[in-house]
């Protein structure tokens, strides 16, 4: 009975994702006919050059964007599942240990000072700057949260240090956008609200590889995370090395979130709300949460991107605005309807 319910949730999420991905690939500001999509795919599979402008728009702009959305959504949601399980705390989101604010700082630094210092890796400059920012700030959180008398860092001090460092880096971003010229300040704002519109194939490939490998690795720790729900000492009594587990899970989360954020900017709320929605549906088993979290994260982000593109079509909203605007009401309604305990 229990298994079949998970199966139903799984299958319906999968079907929903496929449906949304197809709609998302088909509709946008530029009208692309089914025939053009078909011809583009046929030409690509035969290794021919794409001739028509609409075919190229589909292959070079629309399709990478859809796939980017799916995997970034999965990465953020799985990050949220891992972090909430690790901290045993419902308000935790994947950026909590400083990752996304650090990434935002790295990106802002590039926008404001990039031209001065002549950093140039072409299309990769911005993602690399953001990713480095995310990793540095997280490393700083780890380092500062280690308590003086023992080498292990307690969960509470990690959480609080994370909040403090987040505030520090966000004020750094604020300072940079204050001293920035208007166009640079605009780029910072734009990036901080997230957008999938810059997706390109090499970036997509990178995000897919990182997300899939981290997802598979995190499944190995699902059972241990279940045991950790009992409490740190209890888990230790069960024979687990809690500190190694913490380090490994955090590392997975940081890599996934830093890479995803580096390519699309800061997208809030997905990592916070998706794990909760899934727990409301079917309890807190992390093995179930990781898989279905990946699917539901992908569904939520694909749907948000579709709304971001179609709401004011032909204009486009930053996706970070949509995830909260659409996500919050749904979340509140569900929260009030169900007797939900973390």
């Amino acid at each position, binding site marked *: 009975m229990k298994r079949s319910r998970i199966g139903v949730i799984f299958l319906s999420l999968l079907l929903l994702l496929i449906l949304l991905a197809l709609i998302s690939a088909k509709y946008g500001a530029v009208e692309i006919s089914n025939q053009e999509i078909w011809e583009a795919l046929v030409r690509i599979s035969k290794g021919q050059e794409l001739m028509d402008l609409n075919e190229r728009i589909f292959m070079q702009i629309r399709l990478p964007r859809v796939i980017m959305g799916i995997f970034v959504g999965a990465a953020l949601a799985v990050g949220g599942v891992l972090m909430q399980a690790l901290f045993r705390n419902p308000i935790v989101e994947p950026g909590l240990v400083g990752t996304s604010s650090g990434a935002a700082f790295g990106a802002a630094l590039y926008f404001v000072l990039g031209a001065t210092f002549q950093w140039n890796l072409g299309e990769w400059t911005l993602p690399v700057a953001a990713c480095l920012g995310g990793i540095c700030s997280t490393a700083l959180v780890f380092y500062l949260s280690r308590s003086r008398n023992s080498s292990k860092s307690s969960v509470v001090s990690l959480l609080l240090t994370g909040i403090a460092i987040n505030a520090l880096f966000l004020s750094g971003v604020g300072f940079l956008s204050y001293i920035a010229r208007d166009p640079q300040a605009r780029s910072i704002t*734009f990036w901080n609200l997230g*957008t999938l519109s810059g997706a*390109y194939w090499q970036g997509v490939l990178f995000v897919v590889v990182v997300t899939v490998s981290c997802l598979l690795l995190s499944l190995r720790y699902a059972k241990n995370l279940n045991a950790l729900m009992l409490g740190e000492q209890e888990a230790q009594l069960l024979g687990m090395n809690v500190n190694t587990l913490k380090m490994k899970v955090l590392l997975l989360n940081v890599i996934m979130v830093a890479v995803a954020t580096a390519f699309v900017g800061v997208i809030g709320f997905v990592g916070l709300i998706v794990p909760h929605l899934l727990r409301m549906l079917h309890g807190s088993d992390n093995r179930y949460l990781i898989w279905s979290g990946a699917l539901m994260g992908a569904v939520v982000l694909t749907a948000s991107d579709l709304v971001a593109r179609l709401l004011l079509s032909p204009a486009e909203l930053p996706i970070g605005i949509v995830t909260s605007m659409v996500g919050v009401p749904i979340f509140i309604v569900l929260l009030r309807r169900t007797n939900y305990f973390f």
Partner: protein
Amino acid sequence: MKNIIACLWLSMLFMSCGRFSNEDKKEDHQERIVCISKQYAEIIYALGAEEDVVAVDLSSTYPPEIKELPTIGYHRALSTETILAMKPTLILHDNNIGPEHVVNQLEKLEIPMKTFGQYEPTIAGTDSLIQEMGKYFGKEAAADSLVNKLHADMEQALAQARQYTEKPKVLIIHFGRASNVYLVMTQKSTAARMLEWAGGEMAVNAERGMKQLSPEVVAAANPDVILLTDFGYDRLDKGNEIEKLPGISATNAFKNKRVFRIEEHDLVYLGPRTAENVLLIQQLIHNNEKE
């Protein structure tokens, strides 16, 4: 700060939704030009070369009929698909467009893009730009008469400026205010040049074209005249709430009722109407001397 920018940007976005739903009335045109520069757009209309312009960016607001065209959004927050939905055969821009990835995508898709020469922000530079664009659109005669009018008006303005004995200190506040911090134009901005031609001087100096000022600095600068751009002025209940602005009510400008509204597009770039606008500024800042 981030939030302020985001709010401004969003409110602009929503206020301008109307222009996004403008109907494309030029669907049958072979040439389809998307113009992403307010300066170019005004010159194109002044030359009478607007026939094939199918869409413009949000900040292009002059002449008024330009608002009937569909828009592709704010020039620093463009979207590739939005532009391509206009089926452009040519994109005109002045290198002040973004975000970067959109420009990259357009280049990869080999959409023709053109930028006219970058000239000095002077009357001579504006001449060159108008002449170059006139040549490009085959409207040399129109370009010549625009340039002539520009020079004639400018001479008049400069001659009048020499007659004024006073040089009023002018503060130009852009967009009104956000959390009591004023965004003002400085001596590095285009507006400062126009103000100098008009025979006035900027009340504040800074290294960049725009600067945020606290109400205290505004009060200390004590400008003789304050110009508010349209958006900020209109938000202050058509100017009736100006006295509530902190720092402003202590200035000479407010005491002598010399706080005026000015259209943003008359101040932020040079174009065929620049000399006319200088005359307009002259009227605003020197109007007490005539009486």
